[in-house]
């Protein structure tokens, strides 16, 4: 009976509400610098997963959009930013790397868990959009959707949910 209740709960339970990503676009000297952070993304369960030595990856799908009248927003550019970490339990160190569209841009080793959290969840002033797609004095929006792998919880319907989302609008001034 207990098992049946668990199955029922698993079937009935939908995905948890997506956590929020704080997105801060910054226009400076004609460049768009994007900072975002998902402060609540590294949960205790995820911390256990990191400590277990598996590769934990945070993948952020970033889209630059522009409103369209009575229609879906127009996507001007899309970038995939990923940060992963692997903990070596023998040396008690964390090996981390960051990638943009599949290219490794940074790597680092640390023994600090706090540094790992920041590495995975906080990105500061990334210049990821070229100015050529932007028009001066126009309104834009940046969508950031985060996916975390591996999933450490199980639901019957494992598709179609982002682990965290965030959005911010800005005016491109040049």
């Amino acid at each position: 009976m207990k098992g049946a209740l668990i199955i029922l709960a698993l079937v009935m339970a939908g995905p948890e509400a997506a956590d929020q990503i704080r997105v801060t676009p910054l226009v400076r000297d004609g460049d768009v610098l994007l900072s975002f952070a998902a402060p609540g993304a590294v949960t205790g369960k995820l911390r256990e997963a990191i400590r277990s030595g598996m590769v934990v990856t945070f993948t952020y799908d970033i889209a630059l959009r522009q409103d369209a009248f009575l229609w879906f927003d127009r996507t001007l550019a899309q970038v995939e930013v990923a940060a992963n970490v692997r903990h070596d339990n023998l040396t008690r160190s964390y090996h981390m790397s960051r990638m943009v569209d599949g290219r490794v841009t940074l790597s680092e080793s640390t023994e600090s868990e706090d540094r790992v959290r920041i590495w995975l969840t906080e990105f500061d002033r990334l210049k990821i959009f070229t100015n050529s797609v932007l028009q001066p004095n126009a309104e834009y929006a940046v969508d950031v959707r985060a996916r975390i792998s591996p999933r450490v919880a199980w639901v019957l319907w494992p598709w179609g949910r982002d682990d965290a989302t965030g959005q911010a609008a800005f005016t491109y001034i040049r």
Partner: protein
Amino acid sequence: MALGLRDIGAADKTPEPRVTAAPPAAPEPRKALDSPRFLLVLILILIAALAGFVWMARRSSDLSPMFLSGVVLYALSAIDVTMLLVLGFVLARNIVKLVVERRRALPFARFRAKLVAALLAMTLVPAVLVSIIGSEIIRESADRWFSAPVDDVVAGASRIASDFYAERRADVAARAERIAEAMPPGTVAAGDVASLQARFALELRTSRARMIELYRLVPASAGLAGDADVELVVGVETPSLPRDHVRASAVRLALRAATAGRTESSEDSLESGGMLVRAAAPVRDAAGRVVGSIVAGEHLDASIADNARRITTAYEQYNQAKVLRGPLQGVYVSFFLMMTLVILVSATWLGLYVAKRITRPVQQLAEGARAIGAGRLDHRIEPQSADELGSLVDAFNAMAGELRGSQRRLERSRHDLERKHLEVEERRRYIATVLDRIATGVVSMDADGRITTINGAAARLLEVEPAVVGTSVFELFEREDLKPLRPLVAATVDRPHEPTAQEVTLGREGREMQLAAAATALVGAGGIVEGRVLVVDDVTPLIRAQRVAAWRDVARRLAHEIKNPLTPIQLSAERLKRHFRDAPPNARALVDECTTAIVTEVEALKNLVDEFAQFARMPAPRTVPTDLNALVEDALSLYAGLFPNIALERRLDPALPAVRVDPEQIRRVVINLVDNAIEALNTAGASGASQPFVSLSTELDATNNIARLSVADNGPGIPPEDRDKLFMPYYSTKLRGSGLGLAIVRRIVAEHGGSIEAADAQPRGTRFVIELPV
């Protein structure tokens, strides 16, 4: 048209629409889902899928938790959701179908639903129970796998390995720091390699270190990133150190320690086995500035390093499985759920299939029976199996085939009957048309004497309406003018085997109509009277012609026999008159009176004989196209001014075309009729107070292609009883008439193919109407 014949026509019912033989209906094709081959393939696929699942379950321990939770779990979830949808669809479809079939009162709907429900219930409970129990066992087993003692053992082992490693690293770091601190100021700058080598060799001999290197901090060379670089001053290593360690790693470590100003350490796995643990400590001058770095290294034996790594890997795998316990449980639960769904879907499908296999042949038989009952004898049922139901289907198809054959034979017979009926009908129409066209009247009666048919000639001759069909002929012949026919028909009742024939005379508006009538009974097989037929023929013109021919013969004989003695009589009378010319006056007066009377009467007799001769020698007309109006005008011009008290009127149709007649003979006809009218008017005067007149008119009857010439007067008229005799020779109402005028007129008109009739003029008088073909 023989209207009376229509009652026969009433039997001429329109043939029923011909039933066209439809092509034999093809048996309902077997659905692909019912194909044994398809079912076999489906079962094989199902078995293969189950074998694959079992294999995967057994291999699950070999698969990484990441793969299980990241790939297998997704695949199983997709399969579960798909099967749930399939099961829901199949159940919903059959529920809807059941509702519809029940509303339509289709047979076996409840049976099918019950069968499916029974199979589903039979499989649902054990399948769900197995699923629940299996999931519970999995959960309990997982809890047992990750129990506290196991946690402690695995964590302890890992901690030992990492502590050993940390201890070695700390030891190497301490040694590097001690050597760095022991370096005299200026040693790095002096670069006394020999003394440094000796010093480092001594260190190697007295410690566990396997290599010691001194690096000098130098400014970065052009083209290199960073602010500083290091260069090797001196390096010493024991012979036991594997040669495959990478110096570049030591250089990076030395630079990192020199630039950071603190001890740094690193580990390099060697290809030859084991691990090289290095530590770098900054070397400072007297002022405390970092001028270089000492790198010390200790080689961990391969067995120790591998064991430590193995322990760590096991610990990590254990922890990973523990962290992914939820998804891994999900894999197994999904697997059980999938098996449950496979069983449920299979049970549902099996129920439907078995129900269909059972009910379909019976349903097809029921539908086939309905189709056969509705006349679709080409309906066939495809045998679904070779069992008893298949035999039943075969018997049904054989029965339908027999019925179809019988129907075809009936169709052929019906077509033959229809053809014969059409032939009879054609013949009947032909006879009816002939009867309708002939001048002989035919009346048929049934055995009771009721009229069944009467053709147009009979209706016209007997002056009866077509509605007499159905009435008794004996009642009809009670009519005064038809009474002479009654004995004739009655004779067929008394003597059915003897046909009777008789000439009868019927009165028609004062005239007599001579009919040759014959009646006979229709005796069928066995001597039973089935009906009677009365045939009447108008022989009046024939008798009249016979009379005229007889009179012409008489006239010719009279002319011949009378005219011959007239001339001697006349000559004798004139001779007597001349002989007694000298006799006494009294005697002479007597002789003159007698001889004059004799000559006068002889002259009159001669004229009479001439007319007789003319009647007998009437020449054939020489017809030419003639303007009838001009001919009438010409004839009337002869009377201009002769009879001032009689008005001669004319109404001539200007549209009258030329008529092909003999002008002389027709002129004679007109003159004769006008003479008769004038004489009648002069003798009896006009009726009433009106002025006497003779009216001539012409008109064209375009419908019948007839030119009609009428001569009418307003005299006293002719009694109806005398009208039929008017045209007979030697019949005259005039005191001095020969009685041949109208006979000649009639003959001339008849010779032209026309007819003449006498009738009453309106309001009074006589009207002669001549009709000539145009």
